[in-house]
């Protein structure tokens, strides 16, 4: 065994134990903030696995999208909402936990079955390394163009929906019911949204 392969093996073992342990931690830890941070660690380790597979562009994209965007968004949501009080006790929590544990174990068994019964080609296809970036770009703009554009439209819809939900509260206030000082404040804060109301 050369130095390169043994290093690769050690890295793989460390990364996969972080992924498995972190994944279990995300689900089982009661403190939701810890879960969110552990999720970030899991995403990072997955990026590390991509690096081991010689897919550096995918690894960097994984860090950028999952750690830098999605995980930060989750943390934002938790920290803006989080009140430090214990959750209300839910009826039949133990039964619920048991059933969801059963579902998870079933899924795990299914995955193991797929893993064992599939005939994996070993060694797999040769990694193309550095030219992967160009190849991904070519695919995205030729044969995968439609799914790519559809995904962007989906994201746009989600974004517009979020903006509409966020702006609705200031719009729906009845202007007649409140005193004139606050009315002016609300008018000025709405000036970007509402149609121009000034007489001209």
């Amino acid at each position, binding site marked *: 065994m050369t*130095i390169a392969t043994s290093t690769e093996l050690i890295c793989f073992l460390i990364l996969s134990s972080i992924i498995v342990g972190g994944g279990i931690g995300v689900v089982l830890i009661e403190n939701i903030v810890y879960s969110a941070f552990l999720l970030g660690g899991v995403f990072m380790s997955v990026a590390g696995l991509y690096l081991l597979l010689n897919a550096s*562009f995918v690894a960097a994209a994984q860090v950028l999208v999952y*750690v830098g965007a999605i995980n930060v968004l989750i943390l*934002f949501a938790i*920290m803006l909402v989080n009140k430090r009080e214990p959750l209300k006790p839910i009826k039949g929590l133990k039964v619920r936990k048991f059933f969801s544990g059963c579902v998870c174990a079933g899924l795990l068994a299914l995955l193991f079955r797929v893993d064992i019964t599939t005939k994996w080609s070993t060694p797999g296809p040769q990694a193309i390394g550095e030219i992967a*970036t160009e190849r991904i770009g070519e695919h995205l703009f030729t044969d995968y163009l439609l799914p790519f554009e559809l995904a962007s439209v989906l994201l746009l819809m989600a974004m517009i929906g979020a903006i509409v939900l966020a702006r609705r509260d200031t719009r729906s206030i009845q202007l007649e019911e409140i005193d004139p000082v606050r009315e002016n404040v609300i008018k000025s804060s709405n000036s970007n949204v509402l149609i121009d109301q000034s007489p001209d």
Partner: protein
Amino acid sequence: MITTLNIVFVAVVNTGLDLEISFNHFLEGIGLPSSIAHLLWLPLPMLLVLSAALIGVLVTVWLERKISAAAQQRIGPEYAGALGILQPMADGLKLLVKEDIIPQKADSLLFTLGPVLVLIPVILSWLIVPFGQNLLISNVGIGIFLWIALSSIQPIGLLMSGYASNNKYSLLGGLRAAAQSISYEIPLALAVLAVVMMSNSLSTIDIVNQQNTAGFLSWNIFRQPIGFLIFWICALAECERLPFDLPEAEEELVAGYQTEYAGMKFALFYLGSYINLVLSSLLVSVLYLGGWGFPIPIELIANILGQSANDPIIQIITGSIGIMMTVFKTYLLVFLAILLRWTTPRVRIDQLLDLGWKFLLPISLVNLLFTAALKLAFPVAFGG
């Protein structure tokens, strides 16, 4: 002894100043197997770049103190060494021996992990900073994209330390820092994308080489003036420098997410912000100011002087000038950042977000489209 040095010297020059190959040749020459030579080589460039980064920070801290003093008509540090040049060392020593306090109600694990998570991505990003054709740790193919990806980890560390401090100012500061860093990352990435489009490569080496065809006239700053401004503004915002230092705005938030930190943990934040400033300036000089390139091509000067550009001496001189040019451009930008600190007022949080989302983002998109159009129209000047 002199003959050995001579052999090493010739070997270094013959491989185009690729120190790795010559180092390995040298070790194999004295009878070590190539794998051991490779292992011995691996930590060397990392240690070198790490110490370069730290020395860069010391110099920047000193510059910041002296230039700030000059801007306010003070003298600044004076007694620690000549012109107070040892003052940053004294600062560092003070932080090193200070008591390391973890507030009682803080979350000690996350409190400790936060500053580390802020510092590590910044140091890792030095992986791709080139000081010469072969003078960088690793010419990875994804190059500049690696930096963008790594800098997106930082907000997690900021949120973590803001949350773990159990202090309202810290939490507000952490949230502000994360919001700011997310919103300015997008125009930053789009500005970089325009440069990448012109040089057809993400690698920093290729980006610099593409700018050094005709001396300073081919620098990207002339082809991407808007991109340069966008990148510089966003880099300042990512480093939390004035006018964008909202996360630690003293009048509003005490010191933001750093409020509860003391001793070495505070020093990690301090170090991180200055390493980030030097790194951003380095990347501006790499992306827009021709990196290690001399304003007039050195081959031209060598030809005028009647020397061959492949002459060993000339190559050594070229390499040294390259390092000096990179450092010079970088510190010029650091100087500009420090001057900006004392000449611009801080923006409000809503102005900051408006500037990022409603101004820089559309402008950088237009810049990208414009670059694409120019590239199709004038492939000679815009890297076809």
